[in-house]
């Protein structure tokens, strides 16, 4: 809230492993942090790939596959970001994605992929609107409303598709084939990178493979998804609108008292959230390789998106990382998963070892020793097993998330008033939206007892509204 807050924890954006640096007052800008993480991941993957002799870890086809898996998750996570930054927990992302898949297939079938995309956003937004009406206007518990929307999504699309798709496809659970977006590759860059990758040189080829995987076979939808990350950041953190929106998630009463129309902002945020989730659903229908709508195809990706967002500390950059992790684990698992995911254990051991050394160098002996123990344990598991049992493979990303959340929970912080119900009638007195929304969103504000009226805002970043562009750069 005050400038002094920067010294407490300047870098909530920096991801789970960031250390507090009480001795250093200089903050590292978000973009540099992101670049550093990208570099660390690249080095880690290249090393693991080289040392374990598994080129698939960094091959362009794996990365391509990971990107395709990550896209719907990313869009759902962005949807979650918008809603939760305005203080509305959106567990209904799953349902909104389902709405999106149906809308995309319907409009896509008749008027082509762009219309499908639009319809998906529209259908998702309708889901968001429902959620907003329930939670904002009628003060329904956010979780209850979200679950209801998930059920509604399943039911309504089932009804609609037996009504409309059945005559077309002869199957009430699936749509007929839907026209897809074309894909584009960045030539001649992709060609050069392909040559580099084929050389199988240590490091260079790995990096080339990773880059190539990101620049070939890109659909417009993927570009939009990626672009929406910086756009969300700019809108939410760099605009007057975004500042006010976030103030509704941190301290709606203070916002209201300063003239912000809290209901309006919450409504727009949740509708936007639904639209993003709907586009995420469209990614499952309109991207090349996806055959169209089919029942249950969303398969929990909305929830995973929510997890990716929490993993990313309610930040655009962080949730991009979280979605990439899920996508990568999924993509890798389906490519000789037993050996490749097993090799990731080795990579994880390396990462933890490096962390341990960093801790030790800084004189934090306990943390260092713990991390060292973890690294040894991981390496031992790697050494004494020949592959990951298939039963565990599918849950690799979930396990990673659990570990990260467990390790870094203290450092994650969501919006302070997230999940709390705000009511204008009661004079801005906030009451619990539900029994324990805090348990769901993990750490940070929501877990704390409800603050007194006019109570604290977030510890570090909720500015009083009205200071427009003066928000400090807290991007991810």
């Amino acid at each position, binding site marked *: 809230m005050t400038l002094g807050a920067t010294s407490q924890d300047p870098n909530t954006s920096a991801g789970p492993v960031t*250390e507090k640096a009480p001795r*250093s007052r*200089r903050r590292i800008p978000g973009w540099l942090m992101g670049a*550093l993480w990208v*570099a660390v991941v690249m*080095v*880690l993957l290249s*090393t*693991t790939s080289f*040392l*374990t*002799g*598994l*080129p*698939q870890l960094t*091959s362009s*086809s794996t990365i391509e*596959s990971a990107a395709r898996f990550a896209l*719907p998750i990313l869009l759902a996570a962005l949807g979650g970001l918008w809603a939760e930054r305005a203080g509305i927990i959106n567990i209904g992302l799953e349902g909104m994605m389902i709405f999106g898949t149906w809308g995309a297939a319907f409009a896509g079938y008749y008027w082509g992929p762009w219309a499908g995309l639009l319809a998906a956003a529209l259908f998702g937004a309708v889901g968001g609107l429902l959620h907003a009406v329930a939670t904002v206007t009628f003060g329904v518990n956010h979780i209850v409303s979200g679950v209801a929307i998930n059920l509604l999504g399943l039911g309504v699309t089932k009804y609609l598709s037996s009504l409309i798709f059945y005559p077309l*496809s*002869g*199957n*009430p*659970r*699936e*749509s*007929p*084939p839907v026209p897809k977006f074309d894909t584009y590759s960045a030539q001649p860059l992709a060609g050069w990178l392909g040559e580099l990758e084929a050389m199988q040189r*240590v490091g260079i080829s790995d990096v080339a493979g990773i880059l190539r995987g990101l620049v070939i076979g890109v659909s417009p939808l993927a570009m939009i998804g990626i672009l929406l990350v910086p756009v969300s950041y700019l809108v939410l953190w760099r605009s007057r609108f975004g500042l006010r929106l976030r103030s509704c998630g941190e301290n709606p009463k203070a916002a209201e008292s300063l003239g912000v129309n809290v209901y309006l902002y919450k409504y727009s945020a949740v509708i936007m959230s639904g639209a993003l989730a709907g586009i995420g659903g469209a990614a*499952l229908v309109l991207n*090349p*390789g*996806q*055959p*169209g709508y*089919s*029942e*249950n*195809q969303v*398969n*929990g990706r909305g929830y995973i998106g929510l997890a990716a967002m929490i993993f990313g500390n309610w930040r655009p950059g962080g949730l991009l990382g979280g979605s990439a992790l899920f996508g990568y684990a*999924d993509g890798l698992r*389906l*490519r*000789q*998963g037993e*050996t490749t995911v097993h*090799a990731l254990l*080795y990579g994880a051991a*390396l990462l933890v*070892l*490096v962390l341990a*050394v*960093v801790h030790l*160098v800084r004189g934090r002996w306990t943390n260092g020793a713990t991390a060292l123990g973890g690294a040894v344990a991981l390496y031992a598991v*790697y*050494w004494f097993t020949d592959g990951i049992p298939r*039963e*565990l493979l*599918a849950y690799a990303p979930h396990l990673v998330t659990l570990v990260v959340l467990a390790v870094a929970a203290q450092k994650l912080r969501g919006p302070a008033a997230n999940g709390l119900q705000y009511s204008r009638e009661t004079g801005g007195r906030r009451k619990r939206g539900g029994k324990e929304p805090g348990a769901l969103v993990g750490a940070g504000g929501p877990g704390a007892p409800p603050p007194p009226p006019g109570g604290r805002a977030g510890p570090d970043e909720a500015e009083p509204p009205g200071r427009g562009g003066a928000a400090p750069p807290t991007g991810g």
Partner: protein
Amino acid sequence: MRRPRGAALAIALTGVLAVVGCAKDGGGTSTSGEGGGGEGAAGCQLADPPPVPDEVEVSTPETADVDGSELRVGLAYDIGGRGDASFNDAAAAGLDRAEEEFGLGDVRELTAEANESEDAKVSRLRQLADEGFSPIIGVGFAYADAFETVAADYPDTDFALVDAAVEGADNITPLLFAEHEGSFLAGVAAAYKTDNCHIGFVGGVETPLIQKFEAGFLEGARAAAPDIQIENTYLTPAGDITGFQDPAKGNEATRAQLDAGADVVYHAAGASGKGVFEAAKAGDALAIGVDSDQYNQETVAESRDVIITSMLKRVDVAVFNYLAAVAEEDLADFPEVFDLSVDGVDYSTSGGMVDDIADVLDGYKAQIIEGEIEVPSSPTG
């Protein structure tokens, strides 16, 4: 600037580790990397095909003088119900054929909901049994527990269960299929159609049922081409049934197999199979469908030209034969398993892409029926 130092340290450290080289050897020996296409486009070294049979002997029940007007048939569908273009539809087709050929007194059809509780299934069955429906047919192994519970309370009602057997319940007739035998023929077809001598199997969920498909496919491919290379992927582990409904995963798994060099892919992955066909089409490869004649399915019409054949699981035949047997009150010599010999499993010929090897397929089929080839029903590794 602590973090950059940490990162530099990380880079230095991993460099050191690289020099020390403490990764385990042989971790990746089982894979030859991307694009390893085997021995070019020459196809496989094929084993000698079996002799061409004169005519494949398949037995079907006589229904000319069967009268089913006394039967009140209850049919409990799995999720999707009539019109799912798969098992439920096949069961419905069997029912319709029975109705047409020997008439049925009364028919009640009920459908399961997604993620419904065991209780819901039990009460659905009790409702049918209470109203005096007999026989009651359940489509899908999801009904196994519910059948076991309900059948014990209604000893005079006939039950039949597709895809599962219940131990110790005399009034439950299992309608089981020899999926491994049908998959064997799919394996033979794949081995004859591959250019790289490299094929793939995509399973939906790693359950014993799907492993039967895998076992038969592997056995058939190896019987036809002993040195064939086979990719093998399951979309989800046992217990996570989403693998049957996730075309995106099916698509990526198939792309991975094509990248590894496979050029004919067989799927046993339900609705995820749509993703398999899309990937095969995009990757200029061939695919083999499952359960019903997928060449004729509207939902995959765009990629039908890659579907060379489908392993047919004739739920309609089983349901029809069962109804005929019940109408005649003769369940004594009802087949324990619907295999190739009673037309319970088969391969489809729509599209004409296996016409050139029909003799070979029928040869293997005859050998399996005669018992000269024994197909294992679980993967042997």
